[in-house]
């Protein structure tokens, strides 16, 4: 199969891109890295009538530290993020996550913003965004606004952007002090879509857990935060017993996985339990150092 016909624009400025988006609304599909969109178009699972290629917008690329957060332009390549010292230093969770995304060739085209706006429930970046409390800057032809992560992901492959908006920047706040982190996923082969994955954050106050974040991929319609597991950990002593209980809650109460050709829902729950304990153990190690 090959893509169905479409109209194509490659704007040279953000202004031009936003004008196109204003004109075409939902019919105007932004093309970022294309590493998810074009395969879908090759199989005609996606048939956008108009593509707005954002790849010439250098102004949407870049990583800077600002006001206690790492600001990443939406069109920043995943590979740039992977090799960025700023990211390694100020967003180590992101740094740990990126090499899990597919393969190097994919990361040479795939973008941070593209992956987030595509909102594939099996993708890695949405869970990191949710775990870190990322904020999303969207622009239309007139104005810009910031969305909180809780409002951004709105369902299966859906984000809360208006028809005339383009995602231009994402801010990843730095983790609080005494916070450990871990990202892990389990796939059949490395580089494949994971059967389950987790981003975990653990903020300690002496031996006690002040705050915990557990966010999972591929177990729901989008990134799934394990509310009950997090609650169980809050204020608890950081030990294997607490982690085991949190894992149980995450696997059996907080998620409702669909299963897929590679993993039954039962197996996904089992993986969530295993991943939760492994990730929390790792995060604890890092928090203690």
């Amino acid at each position, binding site marked *: 199969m090959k893509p169905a016909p479409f109209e194509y624009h*490659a704007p040279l400025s953000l202004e031009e891109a936003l004008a196109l988006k204003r004109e075409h609304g939902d019919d105007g599909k932004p093309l970022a890295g*294309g*590493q998810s969109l*074009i395969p879908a178009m*090759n199989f005609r699972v996606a048939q956008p009538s108009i593509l707005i290629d954002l790849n010439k917008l250098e102004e949407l690329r870049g990583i800077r530290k600002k006001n206690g957060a790492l600001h990443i332009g939406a069109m920043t390549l995943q590979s740039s993020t992977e090799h960025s010292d700023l990211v390694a230093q100020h967003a180590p969770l992101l740094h740990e996550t990126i090499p899990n995304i597919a393969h190097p*060739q994919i990361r*040479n*085209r795939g973008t941070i913003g593209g992956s987030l706006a595509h909102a594939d429930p099996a993708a890695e970046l949405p869970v990191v965004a949710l775990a870190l409390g990322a904020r999303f800057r969207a622009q239309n032809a007139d104005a810009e606004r910031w969305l909180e992560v809780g409002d951004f992901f709105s369902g299966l492959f859906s984000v809360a952007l208006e028809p005339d908006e383009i995602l231009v920047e994402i801010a990843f706040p730095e983790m609080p002090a005494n916070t450990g982190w871990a990202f892990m996923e389990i796939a059949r082969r490395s580089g494949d879509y994971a059967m389950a994955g987790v981003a975990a954050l653990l903020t300690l106050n002496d031996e006690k857990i002040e705050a915990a974040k557990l966010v999972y991929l591929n177990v729901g319609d989008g990134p799934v935060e394990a509310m009950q597991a997090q609650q169980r950990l809050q204020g608890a002593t950081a030990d294997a017993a607490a982690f085991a209980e949190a894992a149980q809650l995450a696997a059996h109460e907080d998620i409702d996985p669909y299963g897929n050709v590679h993993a039954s829902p039962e197996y996904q729950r089992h993986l969530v339990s295993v991943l939760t304990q492994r990730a929390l153990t790792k995060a604890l190690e890092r928090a203690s150092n």
Partner: protein
Amino acid sequence: MTATHAISFTINGQPHEAAVEPRLLLVDYLRQHMDLTGTHVGCEHGVCGACTILMDGKPVRSCIMLAVQADGHELTTVEGLAEGPDNMHPLQEAFWEAHGLQCGFCTPGFLMTLKPYLEEHPDANEDDIRHAISGNLCRCTGYQHIVDAALLGAKKMHAK
């Protein structure tokens, strides 16, 4: 029919201009309109790596790029690896000598993935190389000889 778009890019060091339909995939453009059939199609959705080419020196999957997206960039395909028709790139020599191929269909994709990697990482060890080629599928060799060829290639590339 949709309109064509004018694009200009460099291919294997040569400037090139064309007018292409937006939905034409880059791999199909190379294979069908430029007679550069060394880049192969194995899966049509970016998972096998047989279509790997270099864009601005970095490996990308040409089956999930549009030809129009080549505009303004420098492309290199396997046909552009050798310096001339009578000599080969040291990596190509290495694959030949170290038996790094059997049916050869996946080979151009491996070469294009390894060339920039080995240029940047002359001291890559076996484990590094395995990770670098983890996105390229081969069904014939079992990969061991490909890794050997890559190690030999690195030596040859940096001996020059």
